[in-house]
């Protein structure tokens, strides 16, 4: 106990080193070789579709699960076998997990009580935290008598009251309605800023992730796809999968084939590879038909070209210069704030976000975009960045 009170004062950084988790005697791979670092006081969001292992990752940090492989460190200490209370983590569950037979007050007091904190101190802290979360009026009620938002606050209060060194949230807002979710989102962010506790937040909602996180970790099928600040996640999705996952609606990907200095997108037209690649500093001059050693490690033949719906423009006449792809308007969805136009390009639907659309179904249109808004993904689905050839490869 004495040790943990000391640890409370200090914030904690978390490191996951090659952590894997298998269930059912190895039948299920929930997490595979996670490498992750969370700094002191950082707000980290793990984002991914349902079943991607993000909750398991959180439970591993919490100490509710033990890693099958790899190590977890809190600061410099290996905590693999530590219990949740030894790690001094607090967690908010998706359905809040409030104790139904206790009043709000007893719920919040529970972690203090089992830790043997004297009643005076308990009262003081409960008062403090209920004030912070504006639930003073609910203190005598049972959880069943509370609304969803109030339950959420009680769950937060119970987590904060013991001054944990790590704060874990598992989809805490998913059971709230849209308006309340927004409210709680900003409140959570404010709370974390004020308290400065290292926080890991799990969600499948990219809006939550982007708006709250210092760092976003995108997960898919039990492994990490990308770790980056929210802005970078949007501006530089590392793989095709992330590109398709982030943004609403997500990025359009045109499957193309490399022909000399350009990419052919089926029947829809071609895009000048050199200018698109040049913006990102990629060397596209070497062709794969060349036999030089550097060229073999260069751009592959199958490339995908990604453009976000908001970066595409519609034009009813063929533009004289720049990138243009031909298509037919399929449907028009007016959404108030903007209009979404679905355009069939080479048998695929492409989404275009426009201010207001003066196009109708069946109309022939050209899609245009700027060079710097285009992303190139190679045949492995990875973003083509700097000139790939001269770098010493890691044997991928």
């Amino acid at each position, binding site marked *: 106990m004495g040790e943990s009170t000391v640890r409370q004062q200090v914030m904690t950084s978390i490191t996951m080193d090659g952590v894997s988790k298998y269930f059912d005697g190895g039948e299920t791979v929930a997490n595979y070789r996670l490498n992750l670092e969370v700094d002191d006081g950082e707000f980290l969001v793990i984002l991914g579709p349902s079943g991607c292992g993000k909750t398991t990752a959180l439970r591993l940090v*919490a100490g509710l699960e033990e890693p099958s492989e790899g190590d977890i460190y809190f600061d410099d200490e290996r905590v693999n076998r530590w219990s*949740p209370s030894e790690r001094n983590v607090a967690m908010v569950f998706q359905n809040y*997990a409030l104790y*139904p037979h206790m009043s709000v007050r007893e719920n919040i007091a529970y972690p203090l009580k*089992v830790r043997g904190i004297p009643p005076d101190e308990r009262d003081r802290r409960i008062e403090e935290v209920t004030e912070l979360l504006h639930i003073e009026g609910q203190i005598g009620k049972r959880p069943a008598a509370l609304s969803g938002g109030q339950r959420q606050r009680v769950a937060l209060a*119970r987590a904060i009251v013991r001054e944990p060194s790590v704060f874990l949230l598992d989809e805490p807002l998913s059971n709230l309605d849209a308006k309340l979710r927004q409210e709680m989102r900003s409140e959570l962010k404010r709370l974390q800023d004020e308290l400065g506790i290292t926080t890991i937040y799990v969600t499948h909602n990219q809006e939550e992730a982007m708006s709250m996180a210092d760092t976003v970790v995108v997960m898919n099928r039990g492994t990490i796809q990308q770790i980056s600040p929210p802005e970078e996640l949007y501006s530089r999705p590392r793989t095709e999968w992330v590109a398709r996952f982030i943004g609403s609606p997500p990025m359009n990907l045109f499957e193309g084939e490399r022909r000399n200095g350009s990419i052919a997108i089926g029947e829809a037209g071609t895009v000048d590879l050199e200018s698109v690649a040049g913006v990102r500093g990629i060397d596209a001059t070497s062709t794969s038909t060349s036999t030089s050693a550097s060229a073999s490690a260069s751009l592959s033949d199958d490339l995908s070209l990604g453009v976000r719906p908001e970066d595409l423009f519609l034009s009813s006449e063929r533009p004289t210069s720049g990138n243009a792809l031909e298509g037919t308007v399929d449907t028009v969805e007016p959404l108030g704030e903007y209009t979404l136009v679905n355009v069939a390009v080479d048998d695929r639907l492409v989404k275009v976000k426009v201010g207001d659309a003066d196009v109708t179904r069946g109309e022939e249109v050209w899609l245009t975009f700027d060079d710097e808004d285009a992303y190139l993904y190679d045949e492995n689905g990875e973003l083509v960045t700097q000139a790939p050839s001269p770098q010493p490869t890691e044997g991928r």
Partner: protein
Amino acid sequence: MSDSDDPFEPRRPGTDPERESDGRGYLSVDEIPETAPARELDWATRLANATPSLPRLLKYAIAITVAVLWIVPFLGLFMASLRPLNEIIQGWWHLEGMTLTLENYQQAWTYRTAPMRRALINTLIVTVPAVLVVMLLGAMAAYPFARFEFPLKTTLFFLILLVMAAPPELVAMGNYNTLREVGLFDTYMGLILVHIGWGLGWVVLFLRNYLLGIPKELEEAARIDGASRYQIFRTIILPLSTPALVSVAVIQFTWVWNAFFFPLVFMRSPELYLAPQVLPLMRGRIQVEWGLVAAGSVMTMIVPVLLFLTLERYYKQGMVAAVTD
């Protein structure tokens, strides 16, 4: 409702002229009544609504018949307990010249060889510990079966079910010998232990099913809050199991209280006899004292019935939850 709202005036849907421009066609929030407005019906319609249809009537008839068949023996017993013997012998259902008296009860209460007063206290002495211990031990045994993984878990559970299937008459001889050997024959302690042993099987099965329905997150939340396994059991699991524990208490109480076979085999001294054992003694020598037996039966029966009635609400909750999961 405004006067212009004439139901006989047809109006094309979606063409409310007022609604379109100035919004007068919409209801304001204040106009919404707190409760559904009462519909005024004439008595003929009400009567027609209240009259059941023929199939429904048949169902009622069957239900009532079954209910009467069930209640008649109890009614007979109750009547017999309240009337003198000569009236009962002619049949308790003859109502003319009926005398109601509590004499049977008084006699049974102070019956010479084995007064009901003592027998009821004896029964209580056996029943209360047999119920409480089974509740506590049962919950403690059911929790690991519901939550933990341990070697031979399924085998052990199967064993418990197997023991439940054994007929008590078969095992009674073994119990008899054991109790004699350890010197617990003809003692309440011995009888209580036998009841606990027989009760545990179903209690563990019943409580395990109930505990499976308690969300795991609650325990995980408690673990994160820093509670030990024992604290979780005491402060989360036990309080949440109250309905199931009440069900267990009521059923086990009734079972132990009414048990005839076990006291018959394991209790020898008349002064230690339990209520169900005393009843056959009251039959009398020359003539069967029906009134006395009836009064004794009612007194014995009334205790579990009262317990059930007081705890009925919890009992139902517990039964439903334990059986549905």
